[in-house]
């Protein structure tokens, strides 16, 4: 039980699944972070022909306006990544707080929190985000908040059940007998025992955030057209799919690699925390054989 999340992480990286996932995700993140500095052209410069074929100078050809696809791909990821990370953090923080409080406080607080969660959950995530955006207009911060809020209920549910497990244990009662305030019990005693489910949720929600945010960009809710954005690029260039397919395939592949990478890594992490991929079987067996009575 002790393994801090750091050691779980490193154990996850050492599994083949985790290594592949991390490799894919890091590749995309690297492209998005370094890309803007190494892009050969300005992303909105009309340097080649509309849907121009790939050539020595323009490796992936041109897009629907004659902008360089390579430059736009290199420049088009970082906003998406930042938004996805913020939305995930928001969803985990909000959902986690709601889940822990519902499970620990029980009674009426539990009812109010979880029924609210049910109401939000009744809307499909994308629809919920679209609803907020069409009411308030497509601002980047609003998209981030909308996606974050739409994650919170699902996180709350998972964390609530994980917390119920922890609150049953006697060390929580021991803290109450020390006269600790409920908020402190939740943060100091319970939260450290939830690191693993929280990390798994974070990975999962990050994947969904990327999909939803790029999906919204595809639909036109996101950065306005001259700005490069992988989701938007797919939408802009799909009319020229036969002329220069790379203008659609490459941004789509970046999104795909990123989501597959984060999801695979999360999966590896989850497997390590539940013990499938962690310990050599023999060590667990010896533990079992030496177990004391009544446990």
């Amino acid at each position, binding site marked *: 039980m002790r393994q801090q999340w750091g050691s779980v992480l490193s154990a996850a990286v050492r599994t083949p699944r985790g290594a592949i996932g991390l490799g894919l995700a890091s590749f995309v993140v690297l492209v998005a972070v370094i890309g803007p500095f190494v892009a050969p052209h300005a992303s909105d410069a009309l340097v080649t022909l509309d849907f121009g074929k790939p050539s020595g100078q323009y490796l992936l050809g041109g897009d629907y306006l004659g902008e360089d696809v390579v430059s736009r791909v290199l420049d088009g990821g970082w906003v998406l990544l930042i938004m996805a990370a913020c939305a995930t953090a928001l969803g985990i923080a909000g959902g986690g707080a709601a889940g822990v409080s519902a499970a620990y406080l029980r009674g009426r607080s539990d009812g109010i929190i979880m029924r609210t969660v049910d109401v939000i959950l009744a809307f499909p995530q994308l629809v919920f985000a679209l609803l907020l955006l069409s009411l308030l207009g497509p601002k980047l911060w609003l998209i981030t908040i909308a996606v974050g809020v739409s994650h919170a209920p699902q996180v709350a549910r998972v964390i609530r059940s994980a917390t119920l497990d922890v609150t049953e244990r006697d060390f929580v009662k021991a803290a109450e007998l020390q*006269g600790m305030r409920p908020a402190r019990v939740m943060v100091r005693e319970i939260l450290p025992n939830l690191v693993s489910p929280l990390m798994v949720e974070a990975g999962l929600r990050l994947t969904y955030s990327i999909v939803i945010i790029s999906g919204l960009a595809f639909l036109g809710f996101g950065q306005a057209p001259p700005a490069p954005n992988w989701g938007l690029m797919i939408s802009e260039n799909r009319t020229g799919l036969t002329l220069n397919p790379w203008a659609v395939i490459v941004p789509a592949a970046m999104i795909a690699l990123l989501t597959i990478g984060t999801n695979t890594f999360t999966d590896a992490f989850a497997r390590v925390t539940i013990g499938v991929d962690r310990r050599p079987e023999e060590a667990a067996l010896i533990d079992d054989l030496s177990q004391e009575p009544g446990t």
Partner: protein
Amino acid sequence: MSESAAPPVATTPAQQGVRLKVADLAVRLAGSGHDVVSEISFAVQAGEVLGLVGESGSGKTTVALALLGHARRGLRITSGQVLLDGMDLLALRPDALRAVRGARVSYVPQDPSAALNPTLTVGSQLREALRVHAGAIDNPAGRVLEVMREAYLDPTREMLRRYPHQLSGGQQQRIALAMAFACRPSLIVLDEPTTGLDVSTQRHVLDTVRSMCRSYGVAAVYVSHDLAVVSGLVSDVAVMYAGRIVEIGPTARLFREPVHPYTRGLIGAVPSPERAEVLTGIDGQQPRPGRRGAGCQFAPRCGYAIADCRGEAPEPVVIAGRSVRCLRAWEIQASRPERPAVAAGAPATTETPTLSVRGVCASYGSTRVLSDIGLDVPARACVAVVGESGSGKTTLARCVSGLHGNWTGEIIFQGAPLAHRARQRRKDVLQRVQYIFQNPYTSLNPRKTVGRILDQQLSQFLDLSFRDRAARVAGVLEDVSLGQDFLSRYPDQLSGGERQRVAIARALVAQPELLICDEVTSSLDVSVQAIIVELLRRIQQERKLAMIFITHNLALVRSIAQSAVVLCDGAVAESGPVEQVLERPANPYTIRLMEDVPRLAGLARPGGGAPGA
């Protein structure tokens, strides 16, 4: 319950001779090949029961399963023979082995509620045992009723139609016994079948086992960690330690004059309901598979160990009617162990009690669990609260500590009434009433080091400088016999006994005036239990604490408490000084409880003096 059902029908006289012979059995880890158990040899006569005793991790369950030719995943039976009426079970092919299991060799697991299928009636489960081995029994329908009578169950259709959850724990275990005996096996392996049952139920189940084995001439192997249970049931006993049998011989002699230092240690750790004795535990831990060095495995924990013990593994020697693995068996046999009596606790005082419980009734929802409880805990005295599971003893402790708030009545602590819930109580009250939980595996936060756990308790209650806190934490670790290197350890790096010491240290560091111990030893081995009980008694007397010691184990009461309160169904059945309650119980419930407590039979205990004293 059908405790008074017809006695088992008389059957053919037990066959004579050796039924089961185990020779040089070894089970190893399949991966690394480290031994889990090895050099296991014993024989069981028809109609007799061999007790296999030892603490957790000694390998007794591994041996028990190997007798059925089974090894759990990751283990392999690597050598040896299990001869049942001359047939080697370990040499059988899988399908032949399957035909033998259940018919000629059967197994009774520890927890019947987990072993019985909850979705099938007990009748269909009993019949299934017979159907699988069609031909083993001539008249299956008649046999079902017969075996139920033998297991002291009502042989009625109504009973057969019930589901496992409609039966009590004792009845479930009897169904499991009936299933095991249904095909009239030659060998039956019982793996702690009474652990988790109340003493009275346990006694009835043991009686059933005994009579069924006798009447059929079955050889039985009874695995248990409870020496007292075994001593009343079995004819021979094998003591296991770190995967070897260290001493094996006739039960009465072995318990009366144990030779192996480990056996001596175990017996010294068993509390007696008759006399108040100092319990001597065994410090240290059993070496796990893969960490067993050369020489005698017990040497590091043994008071008799000499340099030679660490060099060579002792071969069994026959001495005083039993076989012992100890280099110094002859010398040790000559010395006799002592069990000093406990010095009387603080005399009853006339000053106001530290804690008074007056007319307390408590409920969970609409279910009442305590009614009109009254008890006093005098200053500097220990009061034991005893009762079977469901008697309400833990609820009482939770009411006093403030963990359970749904009670009426009055609980007065040092002259002032206590608020119902902990969060309504003042800090200094919380500090003075400390609670030690039953299960040290859940009472310590796995994400915090021992140092932080103790420091947090201090900083919640007392306004001290960092340096003062560190000094007190170090001091309290010393008090519970843990070194400074424990400060940086996490709970999962500690054994059960060490964890419970940390939990005790956490309570002590707050400088309490009332200590509530809720079944603090029930999840520990007997040798560790002895250490913890002695530790608590020493601390209670040194620090002049008032203490409530809650337990289901009547025998423990003698060693620690000055007065006792017996709870039955949420009410006080009897209370008074320990000697009076345990020696001259007046209440029929207490009398029955005392009669049913398993005792270490064969242990010479002449009129109050320690043997050899």
